[in-house]
């Protein structure tokens, strides 16, 4: 009697060990996705969630139509025996405190292998601090504050270009436009006083001054304004040649409407992503902002290309066109998954080493970066961007630099 029981137990035990062994070959790699899914920035967070869901589909299922795009060919991560990738989404509610709490939960309760996020720089700051304390890789795709890579962190990696990169892009673009005959001597910056608006405006001012140009006229305002008439009237009065808009979606929509109401058309309007890239903005006031320039690292590309196919998949999932912010976050996620794939394991230290060794070429990316390679601070030194233009009021096309341009830039700004 007893012997039979023991034998039965042994059989059961060995079967479960075998099953467990097989299960680990079909394991799931959990990655934390920390985004603003409620609050003022919810629009961005929700779009990013859709983008990452598309990314998960691309990685976890075989997508031969995407050609040599990394992780698309096979189902799952080849380096981990076909393991599936699962993003555990967490809402940071737009608050650094909540972001940090959720990061802790992702690390200690959900036991994620890595975290990606968190959009607002203040939240990325606090959440990555927790990841650093616990030794979990944190890959950021879209926060632009300079101080994020100035903390001496070893586990923080950022794939997106930062404010200083964009400032250089704007400077070079304006130089080229001047050479082509446009007037670009006086520049005005309209920016909110959040950490985004302030840090970008400060960097643009210093880059312009370093390169011998006059400091731009600084028109600051408090975010989420109820009215922007006075700012537009100031522009109308000062008549700058170029207006750089550094605003979130809510204010961007208000500015576009107010400019039309007050019949103000700058000769050249250059937007710093954020609000002007939001699909809501284009739907709402795109037809009033024809000719607006914008910076982007995303471009749909020719039909049938991997980027175009990804854009289609995203449109199906979210109902909106892919925008630069969601695309940058998606790219950050792909870089992270590629590193996990190369690491061949969910061990944080191995993933960290793989991230440090990242060396992706432009044709392996969905963004228009020159590549992905991190310096010792964790910043992607090959991040780059192009200038796009809203030429028909509905879609952005790449117009600069010439090598990446789909169309010629159209001047002056048409507006409505």
């Amino acid at each position: 009697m007893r012997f039979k029981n023991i034998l039965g137990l042994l059989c059961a035990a060995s079967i479960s060990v075998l099953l467990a062994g097989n299960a680990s070959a079909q394991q799931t790699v959990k990655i934390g996705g920390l985004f603003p899914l409620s609050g003022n920035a919810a629009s961005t967070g929700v779009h990013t969630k859709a983008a990452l869901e598309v990314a998960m589909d691309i990685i976890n299922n075989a997508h031969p139509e995407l050609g040599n795009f990394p992780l698309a060919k096979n189902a799952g991560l080849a380096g981990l025996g076909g393991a599936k990738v699962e993003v555990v989404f967490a809402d940071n509610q737009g608050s650094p405190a909540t972001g940090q709490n959720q990061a802790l939960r992702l690390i200690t309760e959900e036991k994620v292998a890595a975290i990606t996020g968190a959009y607002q720089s203040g939240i990325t700051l606090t959440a990555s601090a927790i990841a650093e304390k616990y030794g979990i890789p944190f890959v950021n795709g879209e926060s632009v504050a300079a101080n994020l890579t100035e903390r001496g962190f070893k586990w923080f990696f950022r794939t997106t270009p930062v404010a200083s990169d964009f400032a250089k892009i704007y400077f070079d673009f304006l130089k080229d436009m001047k050479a082509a005959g446009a007037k670009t001597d006086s520049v005005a910056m309209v920016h909110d006083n959040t950490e985004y608006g302030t840090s970008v405006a400060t960097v643009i001012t210093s880059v312009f001054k370093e390169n011998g140009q006059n400091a731009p006229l600084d028109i600051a305002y408090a975010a989420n304004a109820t009215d922007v008439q006075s700012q537009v009237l100031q522009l109308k009065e000062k008549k700058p040649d170029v207006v750089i808009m550094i605003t979130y979606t809510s204010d961007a929509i208000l500015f576009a409407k107010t400019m039309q109401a007050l019949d103000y058309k700058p000769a050249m309007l250059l937007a710093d992503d954020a609000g002007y890239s939001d699909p809501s903005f284009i739907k709402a006031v795109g037809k009033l902002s024809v000719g607006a320039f914008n910076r982007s690292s995303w471009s749909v590309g020719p039909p049938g290309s991997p980027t175009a196919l990804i854009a289609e998949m995203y449109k199906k999932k979210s109902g909106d066109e892919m925008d630069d912010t969601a695309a940058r976050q998606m790219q950050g996620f792909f870089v992270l998954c590629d590193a996990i794939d190369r690491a061949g394991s969910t061990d944080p230290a191995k993933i960290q080493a793989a991230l440090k060794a990242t060396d992706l070429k432009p044709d392996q990316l969905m963004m228009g970066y020159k590549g992905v390679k991190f310096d010792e601070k964790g910043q992607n030194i090959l991040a780059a961007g192009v200038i796009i233009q809203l030429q028909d009021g509905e879609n952005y096309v790449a117009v600069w630099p010439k090598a990446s341009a789909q169309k010629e830039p159209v001047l002056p700004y048409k507006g409505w």
Partner: protein
Amino acid sequence: MRRFLWPSVALALVIAYPLLFSTPFQQRLGALVLLYAIAASAWNIVGGYAGQVSVGHVVFFGCGAYAAMGAYAHFALSPLVGIPAGIVVSVAIAAAIGVPTLRLSGHYFSMATIAVAELVRLIVTNIDYLGGGVGLSGPTVPRNVFDLSFISALPYYYLFLTVLVATLGITWWMANSRIGFYLRAIKDSERAARSLGAPASRVKLYAFMLSAGLTSVAGALYATMFGFVDPESGLGILISVKILIMAALGGAGLLFGPLVGAAILVPLEEISNNLLGGKGAGLTFVAYGAIIVLIARFQPGGILTLINRLWARRRKTPETTVAAGATHAP
């Protein structure tokens, strides 16, 4: 002796909590409950005991947070050094608000507190020395224990518990002192109290200043735990409202009301975010809002008054029932 049985058990549980619930998230949750309980208990002094509803209390919270982070960011000192500075500034602001407005009826005082809080937030957003829109950060790598930058939430838990006990002790002492006596009279009927010689405005002012100082300590502790403060997270109106509703939900004017409120609302918010937040449909706040509405509707005096009433009902004596805050016979 039996009177002390349940409170002792409760105290023992509170002390043992992080050892019983020892995952990092649970420990951190406990520390957060205590932190908000400190802030809400501080608010309770002026909002509950003195009956003056301050909706701009975040300005004191922010003073403490910015003082703590500023001490580190600008002077490379431990954030603890910033605490006295934060207290001084908070008390000064409280005096500046309180002197002109405490003699007015409640709504004006509340509006004044909102206006001051927003004004300070807007001003700080424009001052680069205080970080402007970007904010101030604390030590990322702790140099010594006084930097208060711990990986585990355990030290925070016990630190906050100590401060909470001190805050409640101060509240209890105040409630049983002459000031507390006057405040009860004023709450009942200010006119009657004044006619009997109670220095109403002065007493309310003292309560307000005391509350402000303690709130700034809570703010400083918050900043050390999260290592960051900016105008939105340190001076935003939402924080005022949060600590206010914790005190109200738990039972304003009762010693342990804010703790009960924090113990309900903080886990509720975190857990509903854990369960529902990731779906991105805002359901966290639908649930949170609905629960608050239900409690406000059915138990406007707060949860603790309900608990006290039920507790007294078990005793079934009129004295204890009345003492427990019931408004009618059981």
